[in-house]
């Protein structure tokens, strides 16, 4: 084991294969969505042509990771984090505003989105912090630090005007849960989401009446227990505070178009010609695919540009239309297999750094996957986040590839890591 290899001897072939499949399918979808002809022509002015460049750069950078010693990432984890935070700050000052979000650097015709790379830095920083032998996520102080680590980039991204991308960071709480944080946090989180939805749907007043009724019912069954009233009153106060702040946040923080998006997603508003247009068109494209799909390059909705943002956030609608349910099944099973594989890789790591990092990658990818496909079929809010390895775009392609390849690098090197820990 002391013999150092070039990092690929123990490379997880399964993950790499699935990754390559997804990238290929993604590129085919972009080819279709950007109206590639029946005979392929290499044209770098088209989206599918540019995406070839992004895939190439991603593979190149991913390969380079295997040339770098893993300890480099351990040592410079915080430096990476600081760098991505710095980029997030810089983009606020010097970035270009596109679609109401100041989230992009424009460099000679190419766009760079620091928010995508911030995920990578944050995952590294959390791995570094929680990977420390002495750290324990069960402790309140460390929970605070961990939440601050992911909170800083999230807040900066919200300030950029891209609340959707910021939500990705919330998914990392699942990793905290795996690392020992009480499941109560998740349950409270889910409870908060329900309260959030009900507040937007029915308003604080109705929600509080509902909560009061629930409390009284609980009290009716449990009034003999000591101190129950104290708990219930506490819960009531917390719910009230949350509901009021949700209402305030919804009205003050969210921009009108975001409010409407949320309301459309919650089924509170029907607006097929307005904000709901994208989702409606996406559902039509996917729904019209049927069981086997209309065939590659034969999607009428794809050809006719009916789905706005089809090559980026709504790329899955191309899959659904041209390859039908069968194609959707294949893509979802590929993603699920990748995630299960990553969770398997995560669990077999002996270094805590590696495991935390692996789960961070899993959380980020899973969140993107669930929300992105969910929004194309109208079961998740349209928050504008890309589908990993599929959506057109250099920043996301590179950052997702780096996230995954570093995981594969760490995994391939896990025995050496073990040695290094013990020496």
């Amino acid at each position, binding site marked *: 084991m002391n013999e150092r290899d070039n990092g690929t001897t123990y490379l997880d072939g399964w993950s790499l294969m699935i990754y390559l499949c997804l990238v290929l399918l993604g590129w085919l979808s972009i080819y279709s969505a950007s109206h590639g002809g029946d005979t392929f022509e290499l044209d770098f002015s088209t989206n599918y042509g540019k995406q070839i460049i992004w895939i190439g750069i991603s593979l190149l950078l991913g390969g380079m990771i295997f040339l770098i010693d893993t300890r480099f990432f351990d040592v410079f984890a915080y430096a990476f984090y600081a760098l991505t935070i710095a980029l997030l700050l810089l983009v606020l000052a010097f970035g270009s505003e596109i679609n109401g979000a100041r989230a992009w650097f424009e460099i000679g015709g190419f766009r760079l989105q620091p928010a995508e790379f911030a995920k990578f830095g944050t995952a590294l920083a959390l791995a570094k912090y929680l990977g420390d032998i002495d750290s324990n996520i069960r402790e309140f102080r460390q929970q605070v630090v961990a939440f601050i680590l992911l909170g800083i980039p999230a807040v900066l991204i919200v300030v950029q005007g891209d609340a959707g991308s910021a939500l990705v960071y919330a998914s990392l709480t699942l990793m905290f*849960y795996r690392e020992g944080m009480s499941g109560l946090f998740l349950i409270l989180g889910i409870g908060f989401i329900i309260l959030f939805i009900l507040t937007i749907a029915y308003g604080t007043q109705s929600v509080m009446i509902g909560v009061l009724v629930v409390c009284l019912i609980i009290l009716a069954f449990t009034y003999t227990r000591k101190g129950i009233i104290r708990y219930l009153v506490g819960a009531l106060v917390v719910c009230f505070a949350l509901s009021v702040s949700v209402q305030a946040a919804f009205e003050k923080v969210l921009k009108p178009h975001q409010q409407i998006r949320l309301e459309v997603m919650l089924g509170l508003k029907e607006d097929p010609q307005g904000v709901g247009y994208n989702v409606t068109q996406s559902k039509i494209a996917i729904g019209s695919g049927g069981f086997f799909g209309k065939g590659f390059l034969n999607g009428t909705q794809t050809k006719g540009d009916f789905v706005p943002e089809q090559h980026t956030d709504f790329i899955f609608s191309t899959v*659904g*239309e041209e390859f039908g*349910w069968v194609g959707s099944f294949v893509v979802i099973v590929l993603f*699920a297999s990748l995630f299960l594989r990553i969770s398997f890789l995560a669990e077999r790591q002996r270094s805590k750094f590696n495991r935390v990092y692996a789960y961070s990658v899993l959380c980020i990818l*899973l969140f993107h996957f669930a929300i992105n496909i969910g929004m194309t079929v109208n079961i998740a809010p349209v928050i504008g986040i890309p589908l990993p390895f599929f959506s057109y775009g250099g920043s996301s392609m590179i950052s997702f590839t780096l996230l995954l390849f570093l995981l594969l690098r760490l995994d391939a090197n896990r025995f050496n890591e073990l040695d290094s820990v013990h020496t």
Partner: protein
Amino acid sequence: MSSNSNKGIVIRASIVIISLILLVKLFFLQVVNDKYAEEARRISRRIVTLYPDRGLIEDRNGKIIVFNDAAFDLMINFPFRTKNFDVQGFCALTELSREEFEAKLAEARANTYRGRAIFMKNLEPRLFARIQEGLHEFSHFNIETRTDRRYDYNAGGHVLGYVAEISRSELEKTEDGYYDIGEYVGKSGIEQFYEEPLRGVKGFEYHTVDHLGRIVDDYKDGVENTKAVNGKRLTSSLDIELQRYGEELMQNKIGSIVAIEPSSGEILAMVSSPAYDPNMFSIKNLGKYYRELARDKSKPLLNRAVAAQYPPGSVFKLIMALIGLEEGVITTSTQFSCSNGFRVGSLHVGCHAHAPRPDLKYSLITSCNAYYCNTLREILHQGNGETIEESYNNWRNYLLRFGLGSTLGLDVNQEKGGNVPSAEYYHRIHGHNRWNYLRIISLSIGQGELLFTPLQMANVAAIIANKGYYYVPHVVKAIDGKPGIPERFLERRETGISDYNFNIVRDAMREVYERGTAAGSQIKGITSCGKTGTVQNPHGENHSMFIAFAPKEEPKIAIAVVVENSGYGSTWAAPIASLMMEKYLMPDSTTQRPDLYERMIKGNLMPVDNE
């Protein structure tokens, strides 16, 4: 660490659950629900309809009487959003104000059928040219060409019918869904009955369009495209010159003329007066005249030739004579006395002055009422223990075989069946079999409950001309130069009365011309046969009627004429019938009787409007 490993399982479970939720949702979206496939087709497929030319209609002599003209509608294709649409430019092109644009858009939205609606109807030529020039900029709009109809002869409107935009209810009623909004369809007459051969078959081109409504491709490589098949040319049995002549003779009168070729049942002319210029119904004019015509008190839209019902009056005596002869209750030598009519007890049917004991021929020439009261008595009193119902039905069945009492099944709409009461009808009034011939004596002279249409009367004339049979009258004789009209027009229908008996009646009808009531309407060189009739009109002057055929041997034309409020049959109906027959049988010579023609043309018998 074991509890944390369990948490790993929780995470794996959530991966599986999330994937399953997405797969199930997708399954419902893609496989279970087919609404989206339909919706996708609706918004991404543009159907371009290729309209066939509507078939022309020619008369029996090959004169084109109905031909095509074009009208243009501006159509809008939904989904349409004013966002990103150059409303100002479009309004400039179509010469609409912003308000008019919004109003038309709202109206179109409300009237959408299969994603399309008429935006502007029947563009005038200048505007059409202008819009066509600039329309390519506005991909949601297209111009649709409609087949409008034009008529060179101002005649035959009731028979030819008209085409008009299909109504909402007609759209929803047609089972094969052939029609689309804004299309034109035959609404009456030949245009309606022969809609299918006339309209041809539409062709379709399917294109895929993008979200801006621009055509991007052939839909499914055009495999579903079809070509248009032009409509078929119809040959009408009308003689358009005769038709026009008939309408001219009937001007300023209310009534009808129906002329039939006895040997085939082909209708040579069918005049309903007052008539209207068929051009009033062209697409370009419909809006203007329809209301006016529909409101006119003289009901020009009513086709009286098939829809007006009159008691046949004396004309019916011909049928009575034929039945009496066939039943053997009278012969040529049978005489009945008539002293100012027919009397039984308190019942009295009046008659006019004539020789006291007419025989059959004389009774027809002089139109003796008493003779036919007696004939009816003989027909219905046959003994052998028959009930009145049985003998009545025996008599009635003759009438049914003459095509009376129900519609003949003409290929022109509005047809009524007239009335020949059933035995049950009299049972209801008088009690079951508790009535006899005296109760229905007025039937014998064509009064009472009997009602015939002018078409049925002309058909009776044709039956007598044919000595016993007829073909169901029809106005179209060939489709694309070939037979192809419905079978029923080619079936010979028999009355079951012998030639011998018909000859007796025909001889009498000839004498009506030679020395009877139609003596003033003789045509030199043509042996015409006829019978006048006068029908009492409780509302004013009597209606005059005349049926005739000519020539006596191998008849070429059988005719019925009804002129309302005109007094005796010999004054108006008989001269008009004879002029018509002369025109048809001698088309190339001018009339022998210009005075008579002048008198008929100038006659104004329109009821005086008292209001």
